[in-house]
């Protein structure tokens, strides 16, 4: 006797929930019914294309979806006017697109709000985690990218023939923006990369204390070059531009981050540590088309699933070195080398 009413109650709740879900699903029908045959994708860029990095890479993934999945695609540039992003996201939501793609942590809040207003619209969010039942997120393992930068720096200081500006000092450096977990995650990856090549290599570390202070970045880099560093990795946002300038000033090597900075000082910037937004976005779009994309789920991209890469400056980095880099990268992929991490960024790559 005691069980029955309780069962009934839970059944009633279950029925109500089912009704609600079907209601939500019904709400979504106009948006998806037309698109059962065609796969339509919209890309909202919270910024501008033409950054030669992050957003352009996303656009490449969208183009692949068009070419290889036969998707109908549309790109909206939100410009850097942040107040425009929410309206732009709304403008492409509920318009019959199977998936709306956007990315960068700056747009996360806008998406969080818009995704709630359009529960039937599916979204792919890259480079930040948005927890919502209709959003699939992509995050990247920065320690993997920093690992490759560490390997390249170590190869620079140990291969003076291939890198004529290198003194062979066995000293490399990393300048971080702030002493916070995400940057320390870069640092541990970088140190590991350098030591995988040669454990005797000395790694200098410093933090600028700001992401927008290129002068201090410059000063710290100059000091590292004075201490013999042959290559410095700038994991410091805008402050890192001062690091790259310092490398040009002393005529040694540096490695950029986040966007393609190879052209800034083409004789000195060896590579840029980039997220392969293209690969990850295309992967998820493929899953979305097949109907197997998991929403409210975080997809993690690192070296093992080709989500991170060093964009090399081919005029400075010879083929033999890029092959060596690929070999070290393969060691991570095969699990022979474990790249250390700093919590809460200790995730393992998806699949």
């Amino acid at each position, binding site marked *: 006797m005691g069980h029955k009413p309780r069962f009934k109650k839970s059944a009633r709740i279950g029925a109500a929930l089912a009704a609600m879900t079907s209601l939500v699903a019904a709400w979504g029908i106009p948006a998806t019914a037309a698109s059962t045959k065609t796969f339509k994708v919209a890309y909202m860029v919270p910024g501008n294309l033409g950054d030669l990095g992050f957003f352009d890479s996303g656009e490449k993934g969208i183009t692949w979806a068009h070419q290889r999945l036969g998707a109908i695609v549309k790109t909206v540039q939100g*410009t850097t006017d942040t107040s425009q992003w929410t309206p732009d996201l709304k403008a492409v939501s509920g318009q019959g697109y199977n998936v709306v793609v956007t990315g960068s942590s700056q747009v996360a809040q806008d998406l969080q709000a818009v995704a709630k207003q359009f529960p039937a619209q599916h979204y792919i969010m890259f480079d930040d985690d948005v927890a919502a039942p209709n959003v699939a997120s992509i995050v990247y393992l920065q320690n993997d990218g920093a690992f490759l930068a560490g390997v390249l720096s170590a190869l620079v200081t140990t291969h003076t023939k291939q890198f004529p500006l290198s003194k062979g000092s066995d000293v490399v450096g990393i300048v971080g923006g702030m002493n916070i977990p995400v940057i320390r995650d870069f640092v541990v990856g970088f140190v590991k990369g350098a030591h995988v090549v040669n454990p005797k290599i000395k790694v200098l570390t410093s933090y600028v204390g700001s992401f927008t202070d290129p002068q201090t970045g410059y000063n710290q880099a100059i000091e590292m070059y004075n201490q013999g560093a042959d290559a410095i990795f700038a994991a410091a946002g805008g402050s890192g531009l001062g690091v790259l300038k310092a490398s040009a000033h002393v005529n040694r090597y540096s490695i950029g981050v986040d966007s393609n900075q190879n052209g800034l000082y083409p004789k000195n910037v060896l590579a840029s540590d980039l997220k392969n937004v293209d690969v990850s976005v295309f992967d998820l779009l493929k899953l979305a088309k097949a109907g197997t994309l998991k929403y409210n789920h975080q997809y993690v991209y690192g070296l093992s699933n080709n989500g991170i890469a060093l964009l090399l400056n081919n005029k400075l980095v010879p083929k033999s070195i890029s092959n060596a880099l690929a070999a070290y990268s393969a060691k991570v992929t095969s699990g022979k080398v474990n790249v250390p991490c700093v919590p809460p960024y200790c995730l393992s790559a998806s699949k």
Partner: protein
Amino acid sequence: MNTLGQIFNNSLWSFVVLDTTTILLAALGGAFTQQANILNVALDGMMLIGAFAGIAVGAATHSIAIAVLASIGAGLVLSLLFGWASLWLGADFIVAGIGIGLLTSGLSVFLLERLYHSEGSYTPTTFPNLPAIHLGPLVHIPVIGPALEGQSILVVVAILLVPFCHWVLYHTRFGTHVRAVGEDEAAVVAAGLRPRRIKMGAVLISGALCGLAGAELAMGTLDQFVSGMTAGRGFIALAAIFVGRATPVGTFVGALVFGFASAIANQLQQVLNLPSNLLFMVPYIATVVVLLSRPVLAAYRLKRKARQGPEVYAGA
């Protein structure tokens, strides 16, 4: 001993000069407004716009002289706005100053976006160099030689401005008026002068010198603009003014304290591997200590005098 040698190496002195110069230029400008009894929190913003204008104009014209003039001009335009809003329209100095700061950080990003389609920074591919100091054989003078060798000409300008500002403030009619308007505005009015005009003069000087500070920051070594690149230097300049009680020489000492502290903090981080988050406080702690030392010393002297004799009443 070896570690000490590593910290006090030649590059330390050049970093001290680099870190001091931008702050000094802005602080000398701020000394004028401070003397005129205006708390100028717009220093940072005027510096930022000076940096932007210098890089934008230098990249377009390939002339460093025009670039520096553009920096000064941009600082002047903003100070005109600051002065107009506060002196003519009666806005509170602090509110107007904060407004200038917000305006410049937004405006510079907006212009970056419109002109260069880039959100955070602009690095011109070629940029004219500021003339550099070359000391020749004098480079072997300890400390001063390595500190100045290869620095931009604006470093010399900043150093020469210290006695010049002193002269203007204490040995010219205009300087006397500025100090008078700061001390007692009513007396200035009674003397038949126009305090608003005098204050505007001080505001314009602060704008020009902050523009110059921006020029040194963007073009001294970097030749690039990064949004928010002043990183609070304008506010440190304000602290330097307080340390130096708004006298040019005292302000110079204040700027030097901060420049030295931040340079040494960087060295300590790299040489001794001390925790960076602690070291970031060093320049600010140094500023606070210097600010506090004066009243503490004064109180101590007062006490000693009080113990010695009764003439202290005259001062109290």
